[in-house]
């Protein structure tokens, strides 16, 4: 599979919490760290704001992967929003599986406001992994329906 | 395995080096001879031909310097890898032929230190088989082993 995906540039939607992960991504920028351009960020106040609807919508609209990033457990600006996300992850992955989408396409990561290098690693690693997985099967479906 | 000085320097975190000398001060060899680990790292960092420096071969690879480096410079790993370059660039440690003899023995018998007739006799005295159970015991094993060595860069270097 790997060799076939040489030219494939995955589209990944990233939901970053305003306080930790978005700030971490900002720091990666001001530190001029370089990473792959495949993740497109949508800012939310808390990872707990990420309605499962958003995730499924993203896949429906052709995303190859979805990244949710929030504060580390215990560090949530809203005390426990990230724990709620953690619990939702399980259900969302199950549902994706039933939809024929590899649950690996959805990731939850903790990135603090200071962890710019961690953000870079997460983005690069996720891009790599999604590349290996190839385009989302849903995407092809969307395309063929059109 | 491509290896260039630049790769070795990067992989060894040598760009982190602050020339504090903790490596040299920890070196048991440096107390008896002229090796200065700090200088070797500095030369590598500056892009000098550190592989041509004879002190490179005075390191016993005890890893004390690497263990103590506050900047995570992989000093010992680097010395070993720079030696690889020295060998491929023909900066052989000329002081002794012994290393070559060891490698030749490794090829011929599977052991770097071969079994002598005297030791063989001693083995039987203490109740061991005269010949140990190893790759050299069975001809097919040894042939396979040599076949493996034949494709490795090691033998090409020794053959030079």
């Amino acid at each position, binding site marked *: 599979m790997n060799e076939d995906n040489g030219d494939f540039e995955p589209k990944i939607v990233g939901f970053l919490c305003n306080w930790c992960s978005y700030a971490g991504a900002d720091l990666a920028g001001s530190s001029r760290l370089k990473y792959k351009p495949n993740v497109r960020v949508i800012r939310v106040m808390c990872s707990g704001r990420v309605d499962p609807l958003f995730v499924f919508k993203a896949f429906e609209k052709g995303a190859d992967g979805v990244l949710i990033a929030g504060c580390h457990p215990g560090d949530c600006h809203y005390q426990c929003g990230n724990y709620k996300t953690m619990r939702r992850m399980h259900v969302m992955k199950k549902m994706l599986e039933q939809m024929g989408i590899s649950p690996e396409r959805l990731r939850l990561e903790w990135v603090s406001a200071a962890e710019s290098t961690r953000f870079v690693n997460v983005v690069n690693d996720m891009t790599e992994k999604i590349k290996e997985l190839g385009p989302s099967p849903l995407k092809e479906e969307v395309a063929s329906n059109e | 395995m491509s290896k260039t000085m630049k790769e070795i320097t990067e992989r060894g975190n040598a760009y982190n080096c602050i020339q504090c000398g903790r490596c040299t001060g920890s070196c048991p*060899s440096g*107390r008896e001879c002229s090796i200065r680990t700090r200088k070797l790292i500095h030369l590598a960092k500056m892009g000098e031909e550190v592989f041509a420096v004879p002190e490179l071969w005075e390191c*016993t690879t005890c890893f004390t310097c690497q263990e103590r480096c506050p900047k995570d410079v992989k000093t010992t790993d680097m010395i070993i890898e720079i030696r690889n370059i020295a060998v491929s660039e023909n900066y052989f*440690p000329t002081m002794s032929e012994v290393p070559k003899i060891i490698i030749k023995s490794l090829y011929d018998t599977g052991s*770097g230190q071969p079994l002598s007739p005297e030791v063989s006799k001693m083995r039987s005295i203490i109740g061991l088989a005269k010949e140990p159970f190893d790759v050299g015991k069975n001809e097919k*094993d040894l042939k396979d*082993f040599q076949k493996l060595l034949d*494709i490795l860069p090691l033998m090409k270097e020794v053959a030079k």
Partner: protein
Amino acid sequence: MREYAYFPGCIGKNVYPGIEKATRLVFDTLDVGLRDYAYSCCPPPGVVACYDKESWYTIGARNLALSEQDGLDIMTICAGCYGTLHNVWHELNHNKELMDKVNENLDTIGMSYSGKSRPIHFVDILDSMRDKVKSSKEIDLGFKVAVHYGCHYLKPSDVTGESPEEPTLLDELVGLIGCESVPFKDRLTCCGAGGGVMSGEPDLSLKIIKTKLDNIRKKDVDAIVNICSFCHMQFDQSQKKLKTFDIPVLHLNQLLGLAFGHKQKHLGLHMNLVSNRDLVKKVKMARKVSA
């Protein structure tokens, strides 16, 4: 019964076979099975790794691959062999590119290695069965010993997981059989043999070991106890070369063999260049006392 693949190493079998034998006797006493394989030389870090690392990884991986199908881990009795095999195991498990390259090489002789079979230094096995070691003791040797941790058993710690600045395991192990580990200056420094220095820079190698032997001699010990056949060779042979020393050198398994009541002849004590005569006398006296 626990079982391990047994890696005696070139020095242990071809130069000081007493170490190979002592190991077999000791682990037999401890009810640990040892299985033999058609191993080659580890190969030596100082010579082969310094000449070409890829070759070093490949030859090491061939050794690790031999016992993999039987699901056995590999017991080493030499810090050098341990350093090589453990480093190869660690590196291959953390570097897929290297693993692929090595397996491509091994494929020419129809072998492969997955990274499962892992090397263990014999002292770590002893550490996990201290009670058994203690109860197997027949003779209280009562030796004062200088212990020598081989560098490659301890370092680099991010690979070995040991604490190289203040190790205590060996001191504790000799304590289990009634021996006292005597502290001495720079006890953790290198014996001077590694890195190809013994073969490539013999004069330097002798200088390093002489400093070490001087420090040990001040403490008036009965023996130097090591856990590395290569260090063993350096300690023994260099004393002969330096002519001014006569401190008996024992591999830990030889010391354990004595404490377990095995005959000194079977432990190959007489194969050392440094005379063990006084030591053997002490063992005989201790045997009488213990009886």
